[in-house]
């Protein structure tokens, strides 16, 4: 059984990652995922202002997910809406679990992801890129957050849904973020209508999919640091 875009049910869309693309940031990542394009940057840890927002035991994560006005079919108002703010909140929680925040009390780590082009699965793409930007910044981490969507479309349990699949009559769409390699689920958001048996399959497809994303993340990090070759 193949899909509208000829993929296998457990196959990701093409993913292309490059680290260290934004010179002024402490860490950054450019990620293409199908027709999604994301840039994520990290600034910090740095002193938190105003000071009363600081935590004397650990760093605070300020994660912002947002969409460029031209990223969607009808121009989006640049002012972040409720959806952007909610995704920012829960994705920030996912990154909190991955980063060793206790090393940097009273500080803030600004993490920004901007969606330049959107075609389903943007929150997973943004979180995957953000986690790589953190690693690129040299932040101490337990692992990477690898995120992907899984769900159901046309009676099949599929990995990495497209916009068309999200719009099918029986669609279930779940965003899953997994702290790898520990395999801990740190992000999960779903909408749809699904029984327990199907739900188990969807999670299993998602977790296996996150492992595939993780392999691509690892490869992207190693590509930034070739051990041989001319100076660059």
């Amino acid at each position, binding site marked *: 059984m193949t899909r509208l875009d000829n993929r296998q049910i457990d196959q990701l869309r093409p993913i292309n990652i490059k680290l260290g693309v934004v010179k002024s940031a402490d860490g950054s990542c450019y990620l293409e995922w199908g027709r999604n394009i994301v840039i994520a940057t990290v600034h910090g840890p740095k002193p938190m202002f105003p000071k009363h927002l600081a935590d004397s035991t650990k760093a605070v994560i300020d994660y912002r997910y947002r969409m460029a006005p*031209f990223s969607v079919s009808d*121009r989006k108002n640049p002012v972040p809406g409720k959806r952007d703010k909610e995704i920012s909140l829960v994705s920030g929680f996912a990154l909190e679990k991955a980063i060793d925040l206790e090393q940097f009390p009273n500080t803030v780590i*600004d993490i920004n992801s901007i969606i330049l082009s959107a075609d389903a699965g943007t929150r997973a793409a943004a979180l995957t890129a953000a986690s790589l930007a953190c690693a690129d910044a040299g932040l101490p981490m337990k692992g990477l957050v690898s995120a992907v969507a899984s769900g159901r479309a046309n009676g099949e349990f599929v990995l990495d849904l497209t916009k068309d699949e999200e719009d099918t009559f029986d669609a279930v769409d779940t965003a899953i973020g997994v702290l790898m390699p520990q395999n801990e689920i740190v992000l999960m958001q779903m909408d749809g209508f699904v029984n327990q048996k199907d739900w188990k399959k969807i999670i299993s497809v998602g977790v296996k999919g996150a492992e595939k994303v993780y392999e691509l993340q690892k490869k992207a990090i190693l590509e930034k640091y070739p051990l041989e070759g001319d100076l660059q």
Partner: protein
Amino acid sequence: MSSILNIVNADNVLKLIKEGKRLDGRNLDEFRNLEIKTGVIPSAAGSAWVKLGNTEIIAGIKFAVGSPYPDSPDEGSMSLNLELTGISSPDFFTGPPQIDAIEYGRVADRALRSSEFIDFKKLSIVSGEKVFVIFIDCIAINADGNLIDATEFAALAALLNTKIPILDENNNIGKELSSDSLPIDLNKIPLSITFEKIDNKILIDPTEEEEFTSNTRFSLGLIKDTIVSCQKSKGGSFSEDEINIMIDLAIKKYDSIIKIIKSLI
């Protein structure tokens, strides 16, 4: 870059400028390397990624159907918006546009608008009722000075790369793009060229460190040797001679930059 380093390095910029030199080795009248890629955003009707030295701007074009202005019932319109967000600098915040972003965006917008290089009469849909509105959204990815010119170049390149969307039966924007480009007069393409003055010396295409050191800016919009817009900004002043020197210099720079922009078509 941390603003504290800009404070420290201002001395250095100043010392070199006195000798007619710049930190990146350029002459005072030399632009940084300009690289432009178009068609970088699949979701946009036109797009461009501009690198001017280390300054990087992405511009994306979207269309909407709107009402014409009462004084021009048969003309489409456009709106340029520049965002300086937390992506490009720890000093920018997500939220309402900051005053700098508003000024940079408006100066770039004015050069494009006054040149009349887009024939807005051809962007009318129903006379007096419906016209195309072009939204040019520019996002700073890396901010290292001269965001005005980089934004204007990105907007231009994106407009030249744009295809007009197909309208549905109700004259709303459809999902597909047509093969039609915008009605652009290639002989009237405007360029923005920006100068800063440091220690009475005029320099073109400033970096962030140079902008920090300078307290006087001048931006020109021009088509070949015709001036279409200008803006003097920041707290310093220019003499009449200096203004004329900058205009001469900008006219000299026009050809080499327009060649890069036209090579994209």
